[in-house]
């Protein structure tokens, strides 16, 4: 089944097409969920609900841009909705510093994932949006309904925390597993 057929099948709520779409894109999208969520279980929930939103909204996909990009966008928006309203104490806006340089050996993906998930919600979201997925601070500010300065400050804080964790646990880099 071609990608267009697949999409059209999903538009008609054909369960087989929906499953095929899921099989094809869930590994990529699940990794997004893991990065943006607090833990594995929440990532799974977000994936499930995110796919339901995708299937619901797929009729609005007009073949402009990649399907994966569109799906990822829908999914991230869904996850942001879950976390952006979390109560979060506003922080003093620090000046943004240069990228932090750290020493590292072979840091496992699992460990990186763990420390990202452990970040406070806003830090995690901003870090992911900016560093991993390349959104600008302005875009992030509008997505999360915060100030641009806040976004930058959050990113800085996130980096500091991550750096501290990596440096402090350099011995455990390879021993972490989920």
């Amino acid at each position, binding site marked *: 089944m071609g990608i267009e057929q697949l999409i059209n099948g999903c538009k008609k709520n054909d369960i087989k097409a929906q*499953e095929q779409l899921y099989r094809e894109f*869930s590994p990529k999208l*699940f*990794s997004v969920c893991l990065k943006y969520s607090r833990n594995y279980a929440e990532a799974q929930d977000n994936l499930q609900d995110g796919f*339901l939103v995708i299937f619901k909204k797929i009729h609005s996909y007009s073949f402009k841009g990649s399907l994966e990009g569109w799906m990822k966008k829908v999914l991230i928006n869904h996850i942001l909705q879950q976390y952006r309203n979390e109560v979060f104490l506003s922080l003093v806006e620090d000046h943004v510093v240069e990228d932090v340089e750290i020493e*590292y050996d072979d840091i496992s*993906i699992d460990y*990186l994932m763990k420390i990202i998930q452990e970040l406070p919600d806003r830090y995690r979201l901003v870090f992911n949006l900016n560093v991993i997925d390349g959104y600008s601070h302005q875009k992030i500010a509008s997505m999360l309904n915060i100030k641009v300065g806040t976004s930058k400050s959050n990113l800085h804080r996130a980096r500091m925390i*991550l750096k501290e964790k*990596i440096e402090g646990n350099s011995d455990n880099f390879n021993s972490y597993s989920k």
Partner: protein
Amino acid sequence: MSERKKLDQIFQEKLGDFETVPPEVAWENIKIKLEKKKKRRMIPLWWKLSGVACSLLLGVWISRTLLFDTRNDVMIQEGVIQSAENPKYKSTPLQQSSESTQIVVAKDSSETRKNVNETLSPSMPLKRNNRVATISSDTKNKSTTDLIYTNKNSISKRKAIANNTNETTNSTIHSMNSNRLATKTDEKERTIKYQEANSKTNALMEKEEKRHTAFDISNESTKLAVKDSSKHELPKVEEIKKTVEIAATENNELDKLLKEKEDKTTKKEKNKRWQINTSVAPVYYNSLTDGSPLDSQFETNQKEYNTSQSFGVGINYALSKKVKVRTGINTVAVNYDTNDVQLNPTFTGGLNISIQGTPINIKNIGIYGTKNPNPTGIINQKMGYVEVPLELSYQVVNKRFGLEFIGGVSTLFLTQNSITMKLEQEKINLGGANNLNTVHYSGNLGLGLKYGIMKQLEFKIEPVLKYQFNPFSSTNTNSKTYIFGLYSGIGFNF
């Protein structure tokens, strides 16, 4: 050995293209929710559809009931609007005499013609022509016949009318286009014909038919007008076409509206065919003769027929505007007293009343006889029936107050049969009569009076006489009983 890398790069490299297969249970959960949604979707669809159907029905019902009452008002209003727009018509007798629908038609065609004329000749001098043309087109409905009578001296058949109208309307347009001097004479002619038109009164049916032909004619004539104008190579041909098209659609729409109105009136009558009603009645039981229902022995005895009650529900269906078929179910119980009956205690086997018990099952009345050897009292016979009428009614007056004649038959099923002996102090149940038919018939004749309380509710009162054909089986009764009921109740039309 450790390599210095920017923090961001570490995450980008490691997590940027990272993929991991989610647990299988995730898809299972999605699948369950998708299937649930599908099922859910099916129900709301039906709910929506039924909702739409309900609202449609409600809408139809509301518009039906509203239009029914305000129809005349609306028509009058249309007439008023028309006359306000064209005050010059106020004095014309045609408008006064013509039907409201015809006014609408005339209005429309006049506007059409006006548009055509304006586009054809927008200059000032021709405004007078326009006016003439509008009048002529307005009077077209009625004056066509007169045009034929006066000018053509031809037959009055409809086809001829149509043809002639085309000719006359065309000629009118031609004359308007060519010169305005002729219009003065035209105007005079028109007014003469106009008056003639008013003097002639056609039958309603003819009016209706002409109205339709007028519609066709106005369409055709406007088309012809376009053709003519194009021949003359007048400017703004396209504009004219547009106006004509618009006019044609307006005509069609009007035609549709009129048809709808006609349909609605017919539908109204169709839809209000059913009526259910309740009835409660005081019932007067009586006999045409002195004969006793019990036995001929009692013929000479004085009898008192008592008043009782009847209750029931009925359903009517209108077969036509005036004729309804009615049925329902009533309970009715009648009773009468036979005075001065003597109890004879010497009868073998116990006490008996003075008649030889043929029609009566005598119960053991034991002790009573011993008090007074020959007591006299009253025999009360009670008969209860379930009545199923089948009647026709013919409506004589059908307004807020209505009057109808009712006739038909009833089938009566015996449900109660008791005879009681009333002595001075005692009341003795003697049993039941054995000469009563379990099923008998009655012939019904009555009047139905109604008064509309609301659109669908009416109060009814129906005095009906029901003559019983065969209530008694034994031949030794010379009783011809009847029941007169004054049935009143509330009827609900739907």
